[in-house]
């Protein structure tokens, strides 16, 4: 057996486990999803082929557009925080001047270990309007309780903070790994040139972390566009439909209203749009190799 042929076999042996899982948990559901999107499947006995009727309906559905654009705005507003906070924390926690770094990293990482739904329910309890911890503290300090549950802006802020809190630890660890791999020679050269800490960050650290920043941006974007469990735990899409994002809308149509066929059509369209967004990000940043 030639070396090339043996390498091929080894390659497929390594690929096989993830390939099987990818097929079972992604390709087959995707295929079924596409088939169902051309039917009026109601989750029970009705499943007739109806052509592209579901897709036409999606494109005329005002509620879908509202939920979709709400998701986009939520993503655009939150993305800078999702990327910047872990980066700044990573820089801080790799500095030789900071103490208790391990403890701080551990504390920041703990929320990553919690399930989004558990986190959501905990946050919901903390921000409960009448009996929540946060309003209790505000009242103890002489303030008036805030309408966390009935004001769209406040409800969105709560979700946003919780969402950022949940991912900060993970992205911070990725950044720390990358920072530790940066060559100290470059920093020494910058010091010789008289650069201060801020200048070193702007001119050296940030550009060299571009591939990592691209990765974090891409993952954060997809995370934000797909935000579901956290919202379900905190606001259930309310007040009104103020925090009903795309995935809530799909879930509601499918599982609460029994319109599985329609929900799968929305999923197919949304998947294509999300893939385009990721592709544009990839091309714009040249896969993180821009710098």
């Amino acid at each position: 057996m030639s070396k090339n042929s043996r390498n091929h076999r080894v390659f497929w042996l390594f690929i096989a486990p993830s390939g099987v899982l990818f097929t079972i948990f992604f390709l087959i559901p995707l295929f079924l999803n596409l088939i169902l999107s051309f039917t009026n499947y109601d989750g029970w006995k009705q499943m007739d082929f109806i052509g592209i009727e579901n897709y036409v309906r999606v494109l005329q559905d005002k509620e879908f557009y509202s939920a979709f654009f709400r998701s986009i705005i939520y993503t655009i507003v939150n993305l800078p925080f999702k990327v910047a906070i872990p980066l700044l924390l990573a820089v801080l926690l790799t500095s030789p001047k900071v103490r208790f770094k391990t403890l701080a990293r551990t504390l920041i990482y703990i929320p990553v270990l919690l399930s989004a739904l558990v986190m959501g329910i905990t946050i919901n309890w903390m921000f409960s309007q009448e009996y929540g911890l946060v309003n209790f503290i505000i009242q103890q300090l002489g303030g008036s309780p805030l309408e966390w549950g009935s004001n769209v802006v406040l409800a969105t802020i709560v979700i946003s903070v919780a969402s950022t809190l949940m991912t900060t630890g993970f992205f911070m660890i990725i950044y720390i790994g990358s920072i530790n791999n940066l060559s100290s020679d470059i920093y020494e050269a910058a010091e010789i040139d008289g650069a201060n800490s801020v200048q070193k960050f702007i001119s050296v650290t940030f550009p060299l972390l571009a591939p990592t920043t691209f990765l974090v941006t891409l993952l954060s974007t997809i995370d934000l566009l797909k935000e579901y469990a956290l919202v379900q735990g905190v606001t259930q899409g309310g007040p009104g439909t103020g925090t009903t994002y795309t995935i809530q809308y799909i879930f509601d149509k499918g599982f609460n209203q029994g319109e599985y066929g329609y929900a799968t059509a929305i999923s197919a369209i949304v998947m294509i749009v999300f893939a385009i967004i990721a592709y544009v990000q990839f091309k714009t940043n040249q896969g993180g190799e821009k710098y």
Partner: protein
Amino acid sequence: MRGFLLTLCSVLFLSFITACSSETSVETNGANNSEEADGGILKILLSEEPSSEDALNNSFKKWAEETGNKVDTIVIPYDDQITKFPLMLKNDDVPDLVSTTRLTRLYPEEFLDLTDVVDIGIFDQAALEIIGQDYDSDSNLALPNQYTITSYFYNADAFEEVGIEVPTIDDPWTMDELISNAQKLKDSGDVNYGLAVDFSRGRYDNLMYSNGGSITQETEDSFVVSINSEENVQTLENFVEWNETDLMPKVIWTGGSTDNPADYFKNGDVGIYLSGSWEYSPMYEEITAFDWGVMPSPIGSLQQSAIAGGGGLGIPSSAENPELAKEFLEWFYKEDNYVEFLAQDKGISFINGVTYEPEDEKVIADYEILQAEMKNVTDRFLVDEKSAWRNYLDSEYRDVIKRAVSGELTAKEALDVFANDLSEKSDWEIAN
């Protein structure tokens, strides 16, 4: 070396598969063995985790003790049952007996007709119809296990503090009086909110029916949609205003929180609470910090309104042990067993001639009001039930009310949206 690794991987994979298979087999054998040894296992589906005070659960326990059978409980909330039950059917893993509010209406072909299992004549006819929700056939797919009526609870201590006289069956308040007194309660500072209403269309609809509105109207051979009528728009506008002015806790009906108005009442933060008779027993056990009671429903622009409902027990056609489920039903509806159940449930009786006779003076007075509310079930509610509009749309109705309260839509826009959707789904025209 490569051969050894491949062999090792194969052995590990096969071991994993075999281990998974063995686990299933052990579980199955375990269940079968206990069935053979101790009698049958009745697999039941309940809507909530049974507490030690739960009357139905205690009936199951007593039946199991008396007959030597076992009860295996699955808990799925009513709303989730709608999506989970079809999956159970597909997997051929259905319970023998279900406690439900809607499954028999949504999947009638999947349930046994219980007409010959027990003497149907023993039941209150209205209870049987309202709980069975089947107005078109003679079959009985769900037999009652809970008969409920919506009711207004009041904080007696707060009433006394403000000097408000409690309305009586013979002299109920008007809706205007209720709102005015709720405002007084709030203004006094004894409670945070004058009025709270469960986040349920079943409670909100009382306001609509009492003002002469309805969701549908019956025509000669069908129904028309009347949810966006002028009186309904006015009712919703009033409801939104009560929320806007903080007479009610707005967060309950905007849907951005899981706050439960029952907790508000139990904590003494609400003066008047529109809920239902099913809350009576838990409140009786839990509220010790203040006196409270039940008062008659107020008269809207047309009349008083109460909504009757409840839960029923049904046997799926593909159940493994339908005979055991039938045995339980026969046992449950025997007078002695039913009387014991009713005393614990403190609910409305659904069997003719059997009533709950409380000993506590307070409970006697409250129970009299709850029973009297039965006469306030309106004809328009019964027409809406007969139309079975909820087979077309259900939670969407509460969602549009939620959007009106949160300010996303005006009352008229919200009801127009729902009227159009219901009309489209049901093929019923919208009433002029």
